[in-house]
């Protein structure tokens, strides 16, 4: 089974609206990271939240982490057309450095 699963698989919203994506995972983690992938490009690191943190902000991004529910959410406020991309959560467990990715959410911002 997958370590990370994003919900929803696809999301379309109007420009200016907020977009929320969720990620669930199965094992205890050291940290959880969110990445963005534009079509045909590599993954770009957005934000990292450690297991002892509950919320983190970076510009228009807000990430929450609930370790009791093994879930995280990524909120993008005031969306822009340039936010159109696939978003992935990735977890890192203690004693390791590899990223374990979820299946991703395809976000489309409609101008």
């Amino acid at each position, binding site marked *: 089974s997958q370590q990370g699963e994003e919900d929803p698989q696809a999301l379309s919203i109007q420009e200016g609206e907020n977009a929320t994506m969720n990620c669930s995972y199965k094992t205890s983690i050291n940290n959880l990271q969110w990445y963005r992938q534009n079509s045909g490009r590599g*993954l770009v690191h957005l934000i990292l939240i450690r297991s002892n943190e509950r919320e983190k902000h970076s510009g228009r991004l807000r990430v929450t982490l609930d370790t009791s529910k093994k879930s995280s959410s990524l909120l993008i406020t005031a969306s822009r057309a340039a936010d159109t991309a696939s978003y992935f959560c990735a977890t890192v467990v203690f004693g390791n450095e590899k990223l374990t990715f979820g299946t991703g959410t395809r976000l489309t911002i409609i101008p």
Partner: protein
Amino acid sequence: EAGVTQFPSHSVIEKGQTVTLRCDPISGHDNLYWYRRVMGKEIKFLLHFVKESKQDESGMPNNRFLAERTGGTYSTLKVQPAELEDSGVYFCASSRSRGAVYEQYFGPGTRLTVT
């Protein structure tokens, strides 16, 4: 600074042939990772180099895959012989320091199609 680069960007080969993918990490990054995404599935870890040493190769699918990082700079990933299920996008990433809380910088990926 220049980002992680990968070559080629696309490769189409026939089943049974050999393909070698190359990754040039960001200069000064000792850590180099390979991941791949097969169609419709999640991105999966293949292996991790620290300089020229394999730190973790638990994700390598089988012995048809060989990764090297001679001299601790660029890395190659050879698939020999290629099978249909090897088709997918192969990503390389690098990071400066050891540890789970350091950002990994990804290359654009190599799209491999085995026919």
